């Protein structure tokens, strides 16, 4: 017979999802935010993104080729995704060499030293960003002004969180709608809550992520802000403060794209919620009482380190072990 018989145990069919297709879906989900950012900050955005992607992919390729050996892993697009996420965490006018250093730290130190995709304990793009934030604080925290208006009328200056922390603006003056559509200074990818939400909905629809982590992060931040507002002033603040904190800084980018990183987040729904609430609470503590105006990156990295512990102790609901209705 001319047939070649293949044998493998069941199942004999496979879902159409692959690592590559998942990464491609996340990249597609990031496109709206990239588009808004390009409108706000101009062509520089594409330059920074391109440099970050090329350097991340190149570094992964070189390390795989010359240090680790084995088949190249760049075709699974995870390095591209790390590059885009790293770029989204940078100001659009950052010099090219800082981007390259960030990529080396993100891919070389945070990912490949642990054995590549799937083995890194911390989110590579965030490790890159935090490294740069500490090493080049001036370049990393000076943002160009958006081209179309600002979150406080006729105000030209720092990001909403930094300005509020320095008491340069009052919460009452902030135009939340402007913040929602991206009219505020900040890292390239974090300014457009609207676009990020659209991307999040796309990922939910494609079953790339589940709702647990984003909802837990944003929900716990809102609740935390609401409680603080209730204790400090009440009144209008009760609603303005949660909304402001969800829209400001990296809340949306972090909750939807960074915290949901597969490798560094817990495996069970319950664990994801614990992880998400942890991120939300730590972020708010850093924002309100810490030295930095923004705490999303630190919160995610801190919770990344707790993930193995969560995986060990938080188990899924086992079939047949919960109390039976009689």
């Amino acid at each position, binding site marked *: *017979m*001319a*047939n*070649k*018989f*293949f*044998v*493998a*145990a*069941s*199942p*004999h*069919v*496979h*879902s159409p*999802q*692959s*690592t590559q*297709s*998942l990464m491609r879906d996340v990249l597609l989900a990031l496109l709206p935010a990239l588009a808004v950012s390009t409108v706000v900050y101009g062509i520089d955005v594409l330059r920074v993104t391109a440099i970050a992607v090329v350097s991340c992919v190149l570094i992964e390729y070189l390390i795989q080729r010359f240090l680790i050996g084995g088949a190249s*892993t760049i075709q*699974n697009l*995870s390095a591209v995704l790390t590059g885009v996420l790293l770029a989204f965490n940078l100001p659009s006018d950052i010099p090219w060499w800082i981007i390259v250093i960030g990529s080396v730290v993100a891919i070389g130190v945070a990912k490949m030293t642990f054995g*590549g*995709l*799937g*083995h890194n304990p911390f989110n590579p793009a965030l490790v890159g960003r935090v490294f740069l934030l500490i090493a080049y604080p001036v370049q990393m925290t000076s943002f160009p002004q958006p081209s179309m208006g600002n979150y406080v009328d006729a105000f030209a200056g720092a990001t909403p969180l930094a300005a509020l922390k320095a008491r340069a603006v009052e919460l009452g003056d902030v135009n939340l709608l402007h913040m929602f559509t991206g009219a505020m200074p900040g890292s390239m990818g974090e300014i457009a809550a609207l676009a990020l939400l659209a991307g999040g909905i796309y990922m939910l629809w494609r079953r790339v992520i*589940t709702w647990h982590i984003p909802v837990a992060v944003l929900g716990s931040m809102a609740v935390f802000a609401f409680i603080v507002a209730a204790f400090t002033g009440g009144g209008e603040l009760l609603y303005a403060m949660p909304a402001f904190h969800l829209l400001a800084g990296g809340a949306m980018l972090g909750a939807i794209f960074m915290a949901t990183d*597969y*490798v560094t*987040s*817990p*495996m*069970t*729904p319950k664990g*994801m919620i614990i992880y998400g609430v942890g991120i939300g609470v730590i972020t708010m503590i850093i924002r309100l009482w810490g030295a930095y105006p923004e705490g999303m990156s630190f919160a995610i990295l801190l919770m990344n380190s707790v993930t193995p512990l969560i*995986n060990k102790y938080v*188990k*899924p*609901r*086992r*079939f*047949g*072990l*919960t109390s*039976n*209705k*009689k």
Partner: protein
Amino acid sequence: MKTFPIGGVHPSDNKKWSNTKAIEVLELPDVVNIPLGQHIGAPATAKVAKGDKVLTGQLIAEATGFMSANIHSPISGTVTAVDMQVNGQGLRQMMITIKREGDEWMPEIDRSAEIKRECDLDSAAIIAKIKDAGIVGMGGATFPTHVKLSIPNGCKAEYLIINGVECEPYLTSDHRTMLERGKELLVGVEILKKALGVEKAVIGVENNKPDAIANLNKIIKEEKFVVSVAPLKVQYPQGGEKQLIAAITGREVPPPPALPIHVGAVVCNASTAVAVYEAVQKNKPLIERVVTITGKELKEPRNLLTRMGTPISKLIEMAGGLPEGDVKVVNGGPMMGRPMVNIDSPVTKGCSGVTIYSGKEAQRVNVESCIKCAKCVSACPMGLEPYLIIRLTQKHMWEELEAEYITNCIECGCCQYSCPAGLSLLDYVRLGKQTVMGIIRARAAADAAKK
């Protein structure tokens, strides 16, 4: 729409290739091979020897103990061998070979088309008849039906659940049976109810078979059967015994050694119910069954009423032969079927279909490294963590595996189906489960020896 509580996947059902094809009778094979072990439990003991003449429906192998099943000759002719033959997996197994001469049936078998509804036997007599007929679960698990119907002390059956879910993609044999033999099925359900002494009987059918649901409801209404039909959400593994019980009754069967009867449920396959009808009302043992032969590249997918022991190659021939190039032949459906290397191996009691994959689908997807996406965890209908289980298996950490409830695994394949990295999750989960089960059995044997 009712469904099971956790996990599950949605593979494309691919039923369209064969679900409109009416059941056809496959022409009788010239030679049949009947394996002695085609059910869970001890293999049957051969009662015939080389040279014996047998009639269709004659007992040729007797159950060895309670947890076993009788086997009957599917054709009439001469026994040419009782010897080791190669089975579908290439392994040698004891089989009875019969060469066909005509088709002469045992005289007590009623072969008329008339449907007999009245049954005045009591529970014990019904179960005895089912045992004599060698009926086993025909959905694939091949658990002897008389064992299932014999309720252990201290348990009480409340529900009889008929499994017409057929959640395996591709397969349509139960679907066609519910459409074409609805009345026999319902009489079978009535008999099973009587055998168990239960009031409630529910037929679970997945909602992608609206014609079968309508057909059953129509007969129930017209003929006044006391049975209900529960349409279920299309989600794999809706037809898993434990999932089906949970979907219909809301009760969850605890991990092994607990059985469905511990939550008051007995589950029988739809085709099994028809076989029960035939055994009790027509004295006909289990010698033929409906087998779906299907695949995307097959010229003529079919549903064939096939005598046991017919070589599977004959079914493939009827479907237009194997497609060119790379193929994978599977005994059963794509999620749980067993791969075959010997297509001349026989159709057995548990063979509900033969599915054929060709080209790229014959091969597994490429394996990459685990990205901890948690899709296996959310897909698992038993609430296990396959990613963790395979690591423990690879490290031979059997005690930890037992603590992870690996024995609860139903080997449905949802984890591996959903894994974007294409990992061989179920391969290792199954290995771990088998090893742990072995350890548990050894421990039980040691404990028993101590006493």
